[in-house]
Every structure is written in structure tokens, then in C-alpha cells.
């Protein structure tokens, strides 16, 4: 009996001793947390609310012993609309679902914590959707120190979208989506359509991928987002040499990059019609296989690229080419292949001009030719812009449309 009691006591104590090992288990009700949906980072004297005076800016911030007021950090926070059986009616239609808090300082974490002085509830980042960094900030600082806070903090998720914007970042937080969704969620979701839209370079560019790129000492790319009045659009890419901002690539270059990387499904390729010059044809890609192979011949490094595409003829302008004729079909396929070839070489040229390895030449070389990579690693920045790429494209038209 005593023995049993002792055993039970031991088991109980073991359980109790385990409790402090559990780590992060703070109980805080969901509605007692303020969900931060988006963060915008501007320079300290930018990103003001329209009509905001310097007095207000001063009121928002705090006294800082070290560092300077370099950045202005804005948080987009979800506003709860009490739903329930009691409150009916569509009052929430026009209402802004989010509000924005701002602060100025140098340490991002310090600014965030100081903002608790403006918030009735604890700030909670696990549902954060996007981080938007203004071009001005990117031109002033490297990317790694800005994003370091997001890498280290436990509440940040890897699937957060990171955008660069040429203007100020805060207006994007004030943007009111026409769908009535909270702004941050809208900004995240428009990046998800990249599968069907080859113009959006958002594949493999979220926070996790950026961390990966920085850890591997590779070049970072991130989608660019623009706001003009009530129009918000993702267009093109911001590219970096390592983490140093290098400029933007346009949509056409993005499409070319994605042809090389094979990250899209269902791109639309437009080409001039070979049968009726002056008209335009469009092809919807169905299947797309890419093989990028590095070759080393002595000191010369070059890459070959094989692209196999299958698509449906989806749009014909003007006079219809007779696609029952094999000669015509071959000509059409040739035209599209030419277009893809042109697109790829445009993308490669643009990337090499900026000096950003958007095509993963470096990692391919590292994987396939590790010895060579070791030799050229130090000089990669000089070698990369001069590397030549030999592309062969094969396009097959599978469906020509029902009626023709």
C-alpha cells in the first residue's frame, strides 16, 4: 500500500515537474488579441497619414537613448465587428475593417512593443499576412538587417508575403479592398494567383524563401506592389544582389524568368501570326517542362536550357489561319517558340544587367559542378553577367479550339 502510494506520488510529481518545460503556453483569449495583418516600413519622415502634423508624429513615438529615428513602422490591425445573433444587417459593408498604428524609431521590435501604448489589446503577429517595404528604405539599408526581426521572432510565419513598393508603404495599409476583406488578407491573396498569371513573380518569394536565399548567400527577389489612387497591383519584381537592392524587372522579364524556372502553369503567350502578318495569336500553356543544365568547358561556363511546352490555341485575332493544315500548325508552333525564345533572352539580359541571379544559375552550378563552383564562388558577381545561355524551345499546339 505504501509502495503504491509512493509510486503514485512519483508519477504525479513527474507530471508536475514536466509543466515548466512546456514553454510558451500563455493563455490569452483570441478576442483579447489584436491581430496584426500587415506591416509597412517607411523612412521616418515618410509614410504619414494624410494631413498628419509633426506634433502627432511626436505623440506617437518614444524617447530613445541609442540610435536615431530612422524608420517609421506602421501596423495594420484588424477591427472586430461584433457578429452574432443580436446584430443583424449589413452595416459592415462600407466600414473599414482595419486601422493603422504608426511609430518611429530604429529597432523594429522596440517600436512594436512601444505601440502597445496605443493598443487596447496585445499585438499578435501569428496571423500576419504581408510586410511592405518602401523603396526608399531599401535604397538606404540592406535587406538583411531590416528583416532580421522577422527572422528571429517566434510569432512570424514563413508564409508571410514580403513586398517592395516604389512609393510609400503606409498608403497600402490604408487601402480599402473593394471585396470588403481586411486589407492585409487581400494583399496576400492577390499574390496567390501567380499560378495562372505569368506576370506575377510571387512564386517562392515569401519570407521563408527570402530567409533561405539569405542563408545560402543567394540573390533575393521579391514582388513589387504599386498603389495608385484606388488601384493596387503586383507588377514585376524587385531584385537584389545578395540583399542589396538592385532595381526592378518588368512583367515581360518576369514571364521570361518563370519560363526558365518553370514555376508557372497556364501562362498566356502572344505571338504575331505567321499566316496573316499583323494579327496576334495567343496560346494558353498546359504543360511546361524545363531543363537548365550548366556546362563547364575549361574556364568557360555556359548553360543550356531545354523548354518543352504544350498549349492550346486560345485566341486568334483577325483572319483565321487554317489550322487543319499541318504546315500552318507548324508555322504557328514556330512562331510561339520564337516568342518564348525572345522572352527568355530578354529576361536573361535584364537579370544580367541588374546583376541578380534570378535564374538560379549559381545554385545549379553549385549542385552540378561543385568543383567549378568552388573555384568561381568568389568571383561569381563578375562571372554571372557574362554567362551565356543557349535555349532551345519546342512548342506543341494540342487543341486548336472546337470550331476550327
Amino acid at each position, binding site marked *: 500500500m505504501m509502495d503504491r502510494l509512493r509510486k503514485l506520488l512519483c508519477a504525479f510529481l513527474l507530471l508536475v515537474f514536466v509543466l515548466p518545460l*512546456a514553454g510558451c503556453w500563455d493563455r490569452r483569449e483570441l478576442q483579447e488579441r489584436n*491581430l496584426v495583418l500587415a506591416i509597412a516600413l517607411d523612412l521616418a519622415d515618410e509614410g504619414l497619414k494624410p494631413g498628419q502634423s509633426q506634433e502627432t508624429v511626436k505623440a506617437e513615438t518614444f524617447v530613445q537613448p541609442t540610435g536615431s529615428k530612422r524608420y517609421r513602422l506602421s501596423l495594420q490591425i484588424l477591427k472586430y465587428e461584433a457578429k452574432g445573433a443580436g446584430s443583424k444587417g449589413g452595416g459592415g459593408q462600407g466600414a473599414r475593417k482595419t486601422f493603422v498604428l504608426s511609430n518611429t524609431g530604429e529597432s523594429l521590435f522596440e517600436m512594436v512593443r512601444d505601440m502597445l501604448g496605443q493598443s487596447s489589446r496585445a499585438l499578435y503577429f501569428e496571423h500576419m499576412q504581408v510586410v511592405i517595404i518602401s523603396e526608399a528604405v531599401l535604397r538606404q539599408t540592406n535587406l538583411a538587417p531590416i528583416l532580421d526581426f522577422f527572422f528571429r521572432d517566434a510569432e512570424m510565419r514563413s508564409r508571410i508575403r514580403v513586398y517592395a513598393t516604389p512609393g510609400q508603404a503606409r498608403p497600402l495599409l490604408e487601402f480599402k479592398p473593394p471585396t470588403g476583406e481586411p486589407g492585409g488578407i487581400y494583399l496576400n491573396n492577390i499574390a496567390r494567383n501567380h499560378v495562372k498569371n505569368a506576370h506575377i513573380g510571387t512564386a517562392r518569394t515569401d519570407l521563408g524563401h527570402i530567409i533561405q536565399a539569405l542563408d545560402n548567400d543567394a540573390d533575393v527577389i521579391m514582388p513589387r506592389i504599386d498603389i495608385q489612387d484606388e488601384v493596387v497591383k503586383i507588377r514585376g519584381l524587385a531584385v537584389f544582389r545578395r540583399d542589396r537592392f538592385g532595381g526592378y524587372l518588368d512583367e515581360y522579364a518576369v514571364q521570361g524568368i518563370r519560363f526558365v524556372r518553370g514555376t508557372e502553369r497556364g501562362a498566356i503567350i502572344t505571338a504575331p501570326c505567321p499566316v496573316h502578318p499583323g494579327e496576334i495569336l495567343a496560346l494558353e500553356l498546359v504543360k511546361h517542362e524545363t531543363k537548365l543544365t550548366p556546362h563547364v568547358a575549361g574556364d568557360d561556363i555556359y548553360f543550356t536550357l531545354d523548354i518543352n511546352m504544350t498549349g492550346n490555341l486560345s485566341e486568334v485575332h483577325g483572319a483565321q489561319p487554317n489550322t487543319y493544315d499541318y504546315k500552318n500548325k507548324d508555322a504557328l508552333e514556330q512562331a510561339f517558340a520564337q516568342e518564348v525564345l525572345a522572352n527568355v533572352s530578354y529576361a536573361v539580359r535584364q537579370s544580367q544587367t541588374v546583376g541578380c541571379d534570378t535564374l538560379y544559375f549559381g545554385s545549379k552550378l553549385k549542385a552540378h559542378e561543385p568543383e567549378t563552383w568552388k573555384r568561381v564562388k568568389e568571383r561569381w558577381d563578375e562571372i554571372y553577367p557574362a554567362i551565356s545561355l543557349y535555349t532551345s524551345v519546342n512548342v506543341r499546339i494540342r487543341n486548336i479550339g472546337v470550331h476550327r
Partner: protein
Amino acid sequence: MHQGKTLNFHKLSTAIPSAALAATNERLKALRQLTSEGAKIGRDISRLAADLRKVAAPQQEPFIFTSDLETNERLLRSILRDCEDVIYRTLALKGGRALLVYVHGMTDEAGLAKFVIQPLLECSVTIPEPGADIESYIQQHIYAAGIQFIEQPSSIIGEMMGGRTLLLFDGHARVALIGTTQFAKRNVGDSKTEGVVRGPHEAFNETLIDNIALLRRRVRDPNLKIKILNVGDRSGTRAALAYVSNLVKPGLLEEVEKRIAAVSTDIVLTSFKIEELISKHPWSPFPQAEVAERPDTLLNALYGGRVGIMVDGTPLALVVPATFLSMMQATDDYTTQPLGGMLIRMIRYLSSFLAVYLPALYISVVSFHPGMLPTTLAISIAELRSRTPFPSILEAFGMIIILEIFQEAIIRLPQRMVTAASVVGGFVIGTTVVEAGLINPLLVVVVAMTAIASYTASFDFAVGFRVVRIFTLLAASVLGLYGTLLALLFTTVHLCALRSFGESVLGGLFDITLLEDWKDGIVRVPLKLNRTRPKVYGPQDRTRAGDDGG
């Protein structure tokens, strides 16, 4: 005291008023009367004792039947004094008298008159001389079917109290027991707790003999054995062990018999009392014997090599050993297509999980780990919850208490009131509580889901779920998901350690040597692919086929 002090004497009654002479006389008279009455009772008792002592009864027995009918009747009357439902009927026969003793209401009196009294009265044969063979006389002249001769007087009295008729003859100490039992009972009806869609509907009733007949009617196998035991030191309740002699696991029957023999209690009115007294873990919230209300469920278990315990007076037979898998099975699994049966069985497993862990998971996610929710869901939950004043733990406990109150009330209520209670409970409380913003609608859904899910398991098991649910919820409310997992571990370990007649309740599921039992456990494969009995119960013959003569 002596030194110059005056001693004053008073009547005692001035100090103690109750010591007055008149009052004392009164009370003395009452006392005398009591004593004389006591003496009378004492005389009665000693006379009774003397009556009984006149006959040299053996040890352990209250008396012994003599060959003198007068004495026998006096003995019976003294033992059965104040049992006014016992009827004594004297018959004047050729060559002597006979006495019938039976309990009114337990005996088929018409049958008694027709098959016992009439042939005896019309009999022209003289009763045999004292010392001669009375048994053959009785066997020759009584039409009634069941006649038995028992030596032990106490058993004879017991049988008579159970509805048989005693027949005594003048000059003979031999007593015949005539089977004329008939009493008010419920007919065989539909199953109340184990409903099926496509199976047979007959269920056990409260009468042991009927229940045994229900079993026999379904199988004509002489290997199906029924062993009758008596349990309850005062009630003498009859219990039957049912088993298939060439299938049951060796040693299991002996173990069951041993445990039932060790049961020491005064009366047994429900089979659960037996279940509780023969199970080894009384503090476990989970049942350690399976309950079968239907003869087909019981037979299925018996032909798996298990032992059934039927108790007179309860329509629920017990089956041991019981495992988690066996308790999660239902007849409908076998009366539908195998794929459909598998689906409903899987649903049952899922709902048993939900019944225990859903509220705890809800609390953990909402109060501790909202990062695990998809963002849009988190937002809608937060918006729902932003109106409610209580922390979600209080809310959840409140809801679960309300739920338990509803369940309890609806079980206790008379049938006619149930609708009213449901309306008050469901609409008035449920809707208003949500509309007033005391509890958020999502939690109502969670708790309702939990309740509904727990109804898919058998009632016994569902009660265990309710206990574990509250325990898990407590753990979750303190430690979040970590607590939920601790509770899950704790419950799993407990269920594995819990043994029902040697078989671990849950452990068989994780035992690699019992993997083939999954064929009719987790899943249900078509019968053509599963021609063996479950291994876990250790049947003597694992092939589901005829007896191969062994």
C-alpha cells in the same frame, strides 16, 4: 458539616418533581406490563425454537422435514410466519392427507388445479404406506411436467419462494417440488438501448428463463452451455453463465466463476452490480464488461470465445472480456455492405474521439494557440467571441454543465414531459443564451457536436467519455494543447493498463501479434476474406466453421 450547621431534610420530591409517589407508581405499572409482555414474547420464541428443535436438523439447515404432516406444516408455518402470500392447501386423499404449499402470484393456480389437484383427488390408488416409495406414486399420478425431489430443506424453501409448489404427504418426509411457476413479466420486446436498422429486433427481457430460451432458439448447438448460479446472499438471484464449451478460452470460464463466487453482497437487482463487483478496477470511468441487450449480440460474442453473464431481473447481459474494439462494434456493422459497415464504424471511432477531445481542442486553439487557425477562421471566431464577456474556459464549462443537466433531466423525466424539456432546453436556453451574448454560437455548436458524437458509442462507454471529457477540458484550460495531449496520453495509458478478464481494453489495438484482429476491428473486411475469430479472446478454434469432431 457537623460543626454548628443545621441539617434540613426535605422530601425528595421537592428537589426532583418526578420522584413523586403517584407518578412513580404509574411508571412502575407500565414497567410491569412491559416485563410481562416481554415474557410472553420470550415464551413464544422459546416455543418456536422448541418446535424447530424437536426435529434434529443437520448443521447449516434450519430444520428437516419429518414424516408427520402436522409437524411439517407447523415447521413451515413457523418459518414462513408473516408471509401472508403463502398458501397452504390440504387435500384429503385416499389413505391420508396431502399438503400443497405455494406462493400466491408466483404460481399458475389453474394449472395447479388441473394437473396436480384434480388427478390427485380423482386418484383411486391409496397413498403408499409410510416408508414405502412415494416418488413413484407421485410420478404416476401427477400430470404436471416438472417434478423434482430435493434433499436440502433450505433449497426446497428457496425453490418454493421462487414459484414452485411443495407437495407433502402424510407419513412421508420426501417432498416433491412441482414446477408451476408463473408470474407477471414483460414480454420480449424491441431493444431499448441497442437499436438496429436491419438486424433482428428482439431483445432480452427481465426473465432469465426467457432470455436463455431466446439464445437457444437461435442456435441448436449442444455446445452452447448454460450454467446457473445463485448470487446475492439474501436475494438468491439466479444468474446464468453462457458459453460455448469448445470455443471458450481455457481458464476464462473458471475465472468468471471464481469471481462470481467471490461476490459477497446481500441482494442483486441489476446485472451492473455483478459487473462492478467482478471488475478489478472500480475507479476507472470505463466499463470493463460489455453489455448485450440483444440475443444476437450475445451469441456473436459467445461464438468469439467469450463468456456471457445473464442475471435474472435485468434485460442486459454482460460479456467478458470486453475490449475497446468490441465495445465500439454494433450489429449494423454486419447487416450492411462491408464498405458501408466500415464507414459507419470509422464514423463511430471519429465521433468517440470528438466526444472526448473536441471541446478541449477548441479551448486550446482559441485561448492558447490561435496561430493554428486559418486567418479567416480566426477572424470570424474572434468576432463571434468579441461579444461574450466570459473567458472561453468558463463558457465551455458552463455549456458542458448545461448539457449534462439537460441529459440528466431528460433521462429522469416522464415521457410526456420530454418534449417540453427539449423545447425549454433547446430553444429557450440555447437561443437566448446566444442572443444575450453570454455564450458564443460556435461553442454551442462545439458542445452540441460533442454531445451528439458521444451518443454514437454505447451508453456505458459514453458515460466514460463524459468523465474523460471534463478531465481533458480541465487539462486544456490550464495547459492548452500541451494539456490536451497530456490528457490524451493519460487516457490512452489508462485504457491500455485497464484489463477486463486479462485482456487489455485498448492494448490489443497496438499489439503487433494481434494485428490480424484489425480485419474485424478498425475496419470490417468482407466475411469471405475474414474466416477467423478474433485472436484476442483466445478461442480454442479460430476458424469460423463447424466443429471438426475434436
